Every structure is written in C-alpha cells, then in structure tokens.
C-alpha cells in the first residue's frame, strides 16, 4: 500500500509542531530560548533566506528569513565566536539551522519521517526577496524572537501525495 499524507494534514498544519522544532533547535544548538511572537511586518532590507526543500510524499520547503544582524547573532551563539559581518560562516549557520528545523519538523509527523527527504540547504542574500508558492496546500508562517532579535520561519507544502 502506498503511503498517503492526506490523513496527516492536521499534524502538518499544527503550529505547535513548528514551534517545538524551532525551540528545540535554538535550545540545543544556540543554547538560548526562542519564542513565537505576534506576526508583524518584516523589514526585508538586507535579509538572508535559507531554504531546505522537501521531496517525496510532500513537496515544499522550510524557509527561514532573518535580518543580517539577527543571522550574525545566531552564528555567534552557535559557534561561540565573535562575528561582526556577513560572511560564509553566517550563511552556513543559517542554512544548518534551517536544515535542523526542517528535519525536526518532519520527524514529528510519522508519514513524513519515513517518506520525505530533505535537500541540502540553500542560502540567498539580498533585498526584498521572498519565496511564494501558488497556491500552497498548507502553509505555516511564524515570527520568532530570541534575545532581542527576530526572524521568520515558513513551512510551505506545495503538494501532498
């Protein structure tokens, strides 16, 4: 019998699964608390976006968008190093955080854990850049805060089998 995700849609759309994945990644990788805050307009200037694609039974992506200062703060926490400017280490760190959140999120949904693969992360730096999928089957779009910094995480499910 082929696997179907249709019965798992409530779990995919459950915002608590994404919150738990983000909080776990920040607690274990960055050693800090992270909480969801009310969505507000994101200042898109000088932002960094990390994308990890989902393939297999679900096609879509986990996307993180962060300002450059927030990404630098994340990198400093994750590496324990003083980071002062956007460089390859910052891009690498944001990609790996996205990778871990994507993996943690899919592991919370049994059908996805077994039948969905992750791409390697891609990181894009630029202004006024965002990813849109029309029309997504399901989308979670949350804003989070750690220390005094904020960032966005989006789970987009473009197709379910």
């Amino acid at each position, binding site marked *: 019998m082929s696997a179907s995700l249709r019965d798992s849609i409530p779990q995919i759309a459950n915002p608590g699964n994404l919150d738990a994945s983000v909080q*776990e990644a920040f607690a274990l990788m960055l050693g800090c608390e992270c909480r969801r805050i009310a969505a507000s307009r994101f200042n898109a200037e000088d932002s960094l976006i990390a994308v990890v694609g989902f393939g297999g039974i679900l096609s879509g992506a986990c996307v993180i968008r962060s300002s450059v200062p927030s990404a630098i703060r994340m990198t400093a926490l994750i*590496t324990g190093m003083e980071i002062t400017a956007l460089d390859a*280490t910052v891009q690498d760190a944001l990609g790996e955080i996205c990778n871990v959140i994507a993996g943690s999120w899919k*592991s919370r949904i049994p059908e996805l854990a*077994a039948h969905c693969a992750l791409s*390697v992360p891609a990181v894009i730096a630029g202004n006024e850049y965002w990813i849109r999928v029309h029309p997504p089957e399901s989308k979670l779009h949350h804003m989070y805060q750690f220390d005094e910094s904020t960032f966005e995480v989006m789970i987009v499910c473009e197709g379910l089998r």
Partner: protein
Amino acid sequence: MKQIRALIMDDSSVMRKIVERTLRQAGVELECVLEAANGHEGLDLLERHPVDLILSDVNMPSMDGLEFLRQLRGRNLAPQTPVVMITTEGSEEQVRQAVEAGAQGYIRKPFTVEQIKQRIVPLVSAG
C-alpha cells in the same frame, strides 16, 4: 580515556565545529580532528590518515554518508574504526540502511552532550 583521532564529515563547517565542541564537552580527548565536507574528501583523508572514530552526516552533496559508508567498507578502509551517523534524517528505514552499510551508531540533529556521551564514548573507550 586515551586521546583519539577523529574524522568529522559534514557539508556545513559550522556543524563540524559544533560536533567537535560537543565531543570535547562529552569528555572525549581529541588528539587531532580531520574535517571533510563530503564522502569523497573523507575517503581521500582516510587513505592517508588513520583515525579512531568517524562521525558523518548523511545528506551531503557529491557523495552522501551512506555511499561513503559502503565505499569505506567495500575498500576495507579503516575496518575497525567505528562510524556514527549524525543527521537530521532519522526514520527507521534510514537507520536500518546505515546499520546495514556498517554504521555503529546513529544520532539525530540537534543532539545533546548527553547523547554524545551515551552513544560515542563507549565506542572510543572500548578501542
């Protein structure tokens, strides 16, 4: 515990540093750490440098961790060296594939110091 030489493979240099730091926090004495960004680089290093422990990501470009394991065992390179996969992918099927390919352990990212202690320290202490 004796000092060991470790090979850490991950396409993320940040994650390689996290793994090294966590090994040290877990009490593993590292004599030297070799780093590779994919399976090709890992095999190339192992041709020239013996190690006591291999920690490998699964999802890497060029040559992934499972293919690395198959080639490692197929070439009989480092036959006594324990290999532990550290990855975001953690389904039963993926763990089964890794064990069949010759992995001694499997740790899901993000991991804790305690998980490293429990699953890796016994492997390097036994050597």
